[in-house]
């Protein structure tokens, strides 16, 4: 570590080398900023991903093991061994896989490596949604009415729901990605939703802990990007509206949110900074909230203690390279831009191109024969695949993030339409044609939509 203190940051890169413990588009995204900062990059990959661009583009690639995540991307010992073997100085976890695993973060730190993420204690504090809710309430961040203790059984759930008032949202306390979440409008629905949530919680998150929260119908899902700087200061870079969802998972995002007033935005950004301060946050994180557009109010939902999939739209409006800032923070460096004068300009939209059919949104792995990305000013594609590569069933269906910027929302939507038309993918089915439907829908173009927009477009 002595060498790092003596380092001249104007000449030397943040780290000599960086291992990216992830795959696909996000591995490639991190590679790009690391390379631009003069950092040597190390990719790790499974047998299924050998031919993907992120492996080819890294300075070094290390095979972790078989396709199954448990035997490759989720295997802490193998990832640490790869770091040792390649002489990597730091590890960036991307999102998903080990990104929010406090044990992994701690073992990276214990191995003497740079950890491009928040302190393990902050991951743990926010990882349990019940604990996070209680912490936020204590810090003065608004939370929805809900349970402050794990709900043990159906009877306890019914009693809690009576106190909270229907409709309620049933969630796995250790959950994420919308898995196991369900809305219940009455006791019968609650009994069924509770059983589903519990079985999913045990299967996917190895924890049966369940919480109930008041469900806000007609709510928008809006999140705030924060950065915990190396000097301990928390800054909020702005919000993203993530209300376009299917199966409680995001499909498109935009910033600024058309459903948030300037006054509400100020309150949300202040709340997000309080949330970060409450857990001693460092590095990039996202405070997810629900906005009730009628009441003009918001509540804290959860904090994602990692880089978010949709971070590019914040980058497009602020001009800040969030991944580069993550690396600077992890190295203990000053920010690359003046964080006291964050400015947002124009409007940006992200469309998540998934390997799934555009009607029922069912997965569609397969071999890609044609892959032609849209080009042009203010169009950005973060892609994990290319022509001649194969999408396997082992990982999530995200193929690429198509992001556009415009001076205003109307212009951004119009550029998004053009970019969708110009994106050609042949082989597997994709949801690209759904985006034409979305961008042409009166509800989306009006800006007045909520998390049920897809159901309404489809009905």
């Amino acid at each position: 570590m002595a060498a790092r203190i003596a380092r001249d940051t104007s000449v030397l890169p943040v780290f000599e080398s960086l291992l990216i413990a992830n795959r696909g588009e996000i591995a490639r995204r991190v590679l790009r900023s690391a390379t631009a900062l003069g950092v040597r990059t190390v990719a790790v990959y499974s047998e299924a991903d050998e031919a993907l661009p992120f492996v080819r583009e890294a300075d070094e690639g290390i095979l972790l093991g078989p396709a199954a995540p448990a035997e490759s991307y989720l295997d802490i010992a193998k990832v640490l061994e790869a770091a040792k073997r390649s002489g990597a100085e730091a590890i960036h976890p991307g999102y998903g896989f080990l990104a929010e695993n406090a044990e992994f973060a701690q073992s990276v730190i214990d191995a003497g490596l740079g950890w491009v993420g928040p302190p393990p204690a902050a991951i743990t504090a926010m990882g349990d949604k019940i604990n996070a809710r209680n912490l936020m309430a204590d810090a003065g961040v608004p939370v929805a009415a809900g349970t402050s203790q794990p709900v043990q059984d159906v009877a306890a759930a019914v009693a809690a729901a009576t106190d909270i008032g229907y409709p309620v949202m049933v969630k796995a306390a250790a959950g994420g990605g919308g898995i196991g979440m369900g809305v219940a409008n009455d006791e019968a629905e609650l009994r069924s939703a509770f059983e589903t949530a519990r079985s999913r919680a045990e299967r996917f998150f190895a924890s049966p802990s369940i919480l109930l929260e008041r469900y806000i119908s007609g709510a928008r899902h809006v999140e705030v990007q924060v950065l915990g700087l190396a000097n301990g200061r928390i800054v909020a870079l702005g919000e993203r509206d993530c209300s376009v969802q299917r199966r409680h998972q995001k499909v498109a995002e935009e910033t600024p949110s058309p459903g948030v007033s300037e006054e509400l935005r100020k309150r949300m950004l202040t709340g997000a900074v309080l949330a970060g301060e409450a857990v001693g946050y460092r590095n990039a994180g996202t405070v997810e909230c629900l906005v009730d557009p009628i009441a003009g109010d918001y509540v804290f939902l959860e904090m994602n203690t990692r880089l978010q999939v949709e971070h590019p739209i914040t980058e497009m409006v602020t001009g800040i390279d969030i991944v580069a800032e993550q690396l600077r923070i992890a190295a203990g460096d000053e920010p690359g831009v003046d964080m006291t004068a964050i400015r947002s300009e124009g409007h940006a939209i992200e469309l998540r191109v998934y390997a799934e059919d555009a009607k029922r949104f069912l997965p569609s792995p397969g071999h890609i024969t044609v892959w032609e990305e849209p080009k042009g000013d203010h169009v950005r594609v973060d892609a994990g695949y290319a022509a001649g590569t194969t999408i396997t069933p082992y990982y999530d269906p995200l193929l690429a993030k198509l992001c556009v910027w415009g001076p205003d929302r109307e212009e951004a939507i119009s550029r998004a339409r053009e970019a969708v038309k110009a994106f050609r993918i042949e082989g597997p089915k994709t949801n690209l044609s759904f985006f034409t439907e979305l961008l042409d829908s009166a509800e989306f173009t009006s800006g007045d939509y909520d998390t049920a927009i897809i159901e309404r477009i489809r009905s």
Partner: protein
Amino acid sequence: MAEVRAEMVANVWKVVVAQGDQVADGDTLVILESMKMEIPVLAEGSGTVDLKVEEGQVVQEGDLIATVE
């Protein structure tokens, strides 16, 4: 006889019915998993089920999962 085939490459996560069970139209036979999503495979028609897959197996698009007779 109705053949139930896989719509996509997937892993057989759960076999819900037992070999030789009587099933009704719309009953869940097996649950596939692909790209982190669970996909229930339903009986189309009622009758006796003859399973062609087991848990943990990988199926390709078009593979026979079961017949209902």
